[in-house]
C-alpha cells in the first residue's frame, strides 16, 4: 500500500503535476477558492496546537526528559581485591632476597601448581611479572601496574575486551544498576596463566511435568 502510494507520488512529481503546479493552470475563481481552503487549513492546524496540545501524543510517546546521568560512572565502580591464593602476597616476602631466574622451566614449590598455557610459545612469567619488584606487574613499555589494576595489563593485548569491560558488557557488574557497582577483574574469571573459562557443572534440569509416570521407568 504505502509503497504504491509513494511511487505514485514520485511519478506525479516527476511529471511536474504536483498540487502547487496545478494552481497556476486553474481559472481565477478556482484559484481563489483553493487559496482560501489552503489558508483555512493552515490557520486551523496552527490553532489546533493551542487548542489540543496533546494531539498525536499517546501516553507512550510523551517527551522524555533524560535522567540525570551518572557522569562519574567510573567513580561509582569499585573493584574487589585480586583473588590471590592464601599466603602468596606480598610476593616480595620470598622474592625480596631471591635472585631472578628468567629461564623457561618446570617450576618447583611453591609455584608447582601453575600450569602455564596462555600463548605459552611466545610468553613467559616475566613478560607480565616485574623482575625487580615482584609485587607489581609491568606493561610492554615498562610501566609498573598494581595487581589491583591487572586489567590494564590484559588490555594491552585484549583491547576490545577491555573496552567492553569498561562499559559493562564483557565481564560482570554487581550492586546497583543506577548507583554503586562492583566490577570483577578479568582475573576473577580468567586465570591469567590458563585463561580459558573453565566449564561448569550445570544445576539440575527442571522436572518434566508432562512425562507420563509409566514411561519414566
Amino acid at each position, binding site marked *: 500500500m504505502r509503497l504504491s502510494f509513494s511511487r505514485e507520488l514520485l511519478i506525479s512529481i516527476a511529471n511536474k503535476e504536483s498540487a502547487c503546479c496545478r494552481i497556476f493552470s486553474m481559472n481565477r475563481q478556482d484559484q481563489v477558492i483553493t487559496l482560501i481552503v489552503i489558508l483555512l487549513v493552515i490557520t486551523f492546524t496552527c490553532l489546533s496546537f493551542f487548542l489540543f496540545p496533546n494531539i498525536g501524543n499517546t501516553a507512550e510517546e510523551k517527551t522524555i526528559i533524560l535522567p540525570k546521568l551518572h557522569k562519574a560512572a567510573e567513580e561509582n565502580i569499585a573493584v574487589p581485591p585480586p583473588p590471590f591464593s592464601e599466603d602468596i602476597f606480598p610476593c616480595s616476602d620470598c622474592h625480596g632476597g631471591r635472585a631472578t631466574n628468567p629461564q623457561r622451566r618446570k617450576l618447583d614449590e611453591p609455584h608447582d601448581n601453575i600450569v602455564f598455557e596462555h600463548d605459552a610459545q611466545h610468553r613467559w612469567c616475566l613478560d607480565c611479572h616485574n623482575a625487580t619488584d615482584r609485587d607489581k606487574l609491568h606493561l610492554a613499555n615498562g610501566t609498573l601496574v598494581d595487581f589491583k589494576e591487572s586489567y590494564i595489563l590484559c588490555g594491552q593485548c585484549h583491547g576490545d575486551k577491555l573496552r567492553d569491560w569498561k562499559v559493562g*558488557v564483557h*565481564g560482570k557488574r554487581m550492586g546497583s*544498576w543506577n548507583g554503586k557497582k562492583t566490577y570483577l577483574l578479568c582475573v576473577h574469571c580468567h586465570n591469567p596463566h590458563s585463561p580459558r573459562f573453565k566449564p*561448569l*557443572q550445570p*544445576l539440575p*534440569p527442571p522436572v518434566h511435568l508432562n512425562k507420563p509416570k509409566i514411561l519414566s521407568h
Partner: protein
Amino acid sequence: MEQNHSQTDSGQCPVSRRHFLKGAAGVISALALGACDAKKLEELMQKHFHEMSKEELARAIARLESEYAEKYKTAIKVDATGPMEHTLFGYALDLSRCIGCRRCVYACVKENNLPREPQIHWIRVLELDKEKGVDLAHANSYYDAETVPREGHFYMPVACQHCKHPPCVKSCPVSATWKEPDGIVVIDSNWCIGCRCCMAACPYGARHFNWADPQIPPNEINTNTHYLGNRPRYKGIVEKCSYCIQRTRQGLYPACVEICPVGARKFGNLLDPESEIRYAMETKRVFILKEELNTQPSFFYFYSL
C-alpha cells in the same frame, strides 16, 4: 422472567442492581464463611490495585503480611514501591557467553519465592544446536551433563520478555496483569482468577500456573517481597518473572544478573544512554525473540562476538 424484573426494577429501586448484588454476595459469602472470618471478607472485598487508595493498599498489605506470618511462621515484608521516574527497564543477554549452567534459574527460585513443589521455574534455559541456530522447535530445556557448555551447543535462557505490546495483558479478562510505567509487566496475585488465558496468549511460555498450593521450605523464604512480585502466591493463579521488582525498584540488579558466572546478563535503564544495556544495543548484534509477532520485548539477546 428474571430479566424482565431487573429491567423494570432498575428504574425505581434506590439501590442499584450492581450494589445490591455486591452486598448480597458479600453477605452470602460472609454467612458461608461463618460471618466471623473478617479477613476473608476483607480479601473478598479488596478493590483492584489501581482503585485502591493509599490507606486501602496499606490495609491490604497489612492483611497479607499477617496472613503470610501465620502460614510461613516468619515475618514477611510486603512492599509496594512504585516505578521510578524516567526509567524504562531493559534486559540484554549475551548468547556468546551463556554456557547454560542454570545458576540463574535457581537464584531466581530463591529470590522470588518460587514454589518448590509443584516446581515452577520462571527461567527456562534452552539448549540449541550451533548448526541449526535459534531454532526453537529443536530446543531442549531438560539437558543434563557433567559439564557445560556441551560440544556443538549454545544456550538461551528465556523468561518473561516484558513486551511493549504484551498479548497476555490484552487477554486477561479481569485486568489482573498490566504493564507498569517502568516497563515491568506485573500480576496482582489477589486479582488473578486463574483462567490461564494469558498463558495461552504468551508466545514465550513465560507464565506458569500454580496447580497446587505452592510449597516453600520456611527457612528458604525470602522475606523481602513486593506486592506485584515475589510475595508468596496461591493455588490456582498464574505467576511469572517481574524483573525482580523488589530489587530493581530499589536500584539493585536482578538476582539472575548478580549470580551469572560468565557475566552474560545485562540489566539497566533503556533511557540512560550511558548504561551498559544501551552500549550493548548500540554496538553489538542484537535480536529479539519472535520479532514477527510485534510484541516488542524489552528483553534483548545479543552476540558480543
